[in-house]
């Protein structure tokens, strides 16, 4: 009888443990929604597309933060994915000693606290960007003269801004994407790579057409993990993005991200502004959440279509 009762208690404990994650998720949504009610009531969905952020006049719009978040994330991934892929390709086949040392070095990038990245960004990256990188891009490469994309690159710079934040984020997400790509490449059966070389593929063709396709699910998984990290990263971005609540004109513009706005403004916010910040938080949560859901759905759909038994 006693044994039976403890067993039942044990069952309940397991159930509760299993439910905690779900309840927490629900709790986040409920709390953020409740706290942001007055914002949605005041501005409606217009909150999402307004670029007006004026605490004195009690007008709030989320667009600059959303755009800043998306731009920094996209730049980070555009830089980090090719870098991680190239590094993984090289290091998987490199001599063991070199491979071990460099591989661990990349892994250790993930161990650096984000505030350190922020400080390093502010005191090292920003001056380098201002004195060397951006002048090179503007005065030598004249990227701002390019058709179509030129207007998004910008002519005026001061070291801070979206581009610098994107670079820092790229370094921060690099180890996550790298680790997964490395595993994907290692998991490709050697005989499949040999078959590719056997029909006359170069290393590059084998990598992009065979290895990458074979491990596409893992690759996407790695990219989504990087994406999730970059979307929510706060501290490092805060130091270098310039913290302007305006719509960015180009990638050298000072801007803000949702996470940076939240961290910067809660201390002195009250009433409607407080609620607007909670609304921003809800937007960020929904963005991360929908990306994860879309990723899961996509991966599921591709594996079903290809009729694979691999998990």
């Amino acid at each position: 009888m006693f044994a039976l009762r403890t067993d039942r208690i044990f069952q309940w404990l397991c159930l509760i443990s299993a439910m905690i994650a779900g309840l927490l998720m629900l709790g986040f949504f409920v709390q953020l929604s409740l706290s942001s009610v007055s914002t949605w009531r005041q501005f409606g969905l217009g909150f999402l597309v307004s670029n007006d952020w004026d605490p004195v006049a009690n007008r709030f719009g989320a667009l600059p933060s959303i755009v800043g978040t998306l731009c920094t994330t996209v730049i980070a991934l555009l830089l980090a994915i090719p870098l991680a892929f190239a590094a993984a390709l090289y290091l998987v086949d490199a001599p063991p000693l070199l491979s071990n040392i460099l591989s661990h070095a990349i892994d250790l990038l993930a161990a650096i606290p984000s505030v350190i990245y922020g400080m390093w960004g502010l005191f090292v990256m920003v001056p380098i960007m201002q004195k060397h990188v951006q002048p090179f891009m503007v005065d030598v490469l004249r990227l701002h003269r390019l058709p179509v994309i030129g207007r998004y690159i910008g002519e005026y710079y001061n070291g801070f801004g979206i581009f610098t934040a994107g670079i820092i984020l790229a370094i921060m997400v690099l180890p996550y994407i790298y680790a997964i790509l490395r595993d994907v490449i290692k998991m490709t059966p050697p005989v499949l790579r040999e078959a590719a070389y056997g029909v006359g593929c170069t290393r590059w063709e084998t990598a992009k057409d065979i290895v990458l396709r074979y491990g596409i699910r893992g690759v996407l998984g790695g990219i989504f993990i990087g994406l999730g990290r970059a979307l929510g990263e706060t501290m490092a971005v805060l130091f270098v993005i310039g913290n302007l609540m305006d719509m960015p004109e180009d990638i050298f513009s000072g801007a803000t991200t949702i996470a940076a706005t939240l961290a910067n403004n809660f201390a002195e916010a009250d009433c409607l502004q407080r609620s607007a910040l909670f609304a921003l938080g809800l937007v960020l949560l929904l963005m991360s959440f929908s990306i994860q859901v879309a990723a899961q759905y996509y991966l599921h759909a591709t594996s079903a279509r290809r009729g694979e038994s691999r998990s």
Partner: protein
Amino acid sequence: MAIKISAKNLNFYYGSNQALFDNSLDIEERRITAVIGPSGCGKSTHLRVYNRIFELYRDQRVTGELIIDGVNVLDPQVDVLELRRKVGMIFQKPTPFPMSVFENIAYPIKLHFKLSSKELKQRVEQALRAASLWDEVKDKLKNSGLALSGGQQQRLCIARAIAIEPEILLMDEPTSAIDPVATLKIEELMLSLKEKYTIVVVTHNMQQAARISDNTAFFFKGHIIEYGPTARIFTNPKEKKTEEYITGRFG
């Protein structure tokens, strides 16, 4: 009979372990040459020299000469990508690429030839027909190559190899992972392919070697013990080791 491939004094090393000793072998053009011998005797290693696939691995190296059509293809000057177009390889396990049936054939063609999409389609169909696979897959060209049965996958790999107009086909135990019925199909296919291609096949299956090959080389511990017409090797071997192996006394 013309000699297509002439291996001269090949010595092969995995790191400091020598795996092949002074292998010399003349392979006749448009014939099937079987390579037999117990596990670990260097059959596959020998084959892997022919398209230089071993070079993918840092610690593997070879000395000696491998003359194909009068050229020593082990010379670093030789274009290894072109060599691999000319010398196709089929592996023990089927290795379809992670793409559709059509793309599996079209992809290597596109690597080596610039064709219009009409010509490409024709070439894919030709290759699939030559590999006796067309009738089975013509309605599922868009499906994944991975969704075919094992025997079909292996014929897909053969079609992929012949689609880029090779002259030599290396087959490393091509039927050992496949059921008996599919194996017979592949053997028939090999017999029809030898009209156009020089085939070298590593096999564990001595009946298979006897059924399909014109010449047979017997390998033992990295040495080529005996080489000659298949009929003679199987009925009247000169070496005691060969006789012991083909009569099943070891291996």
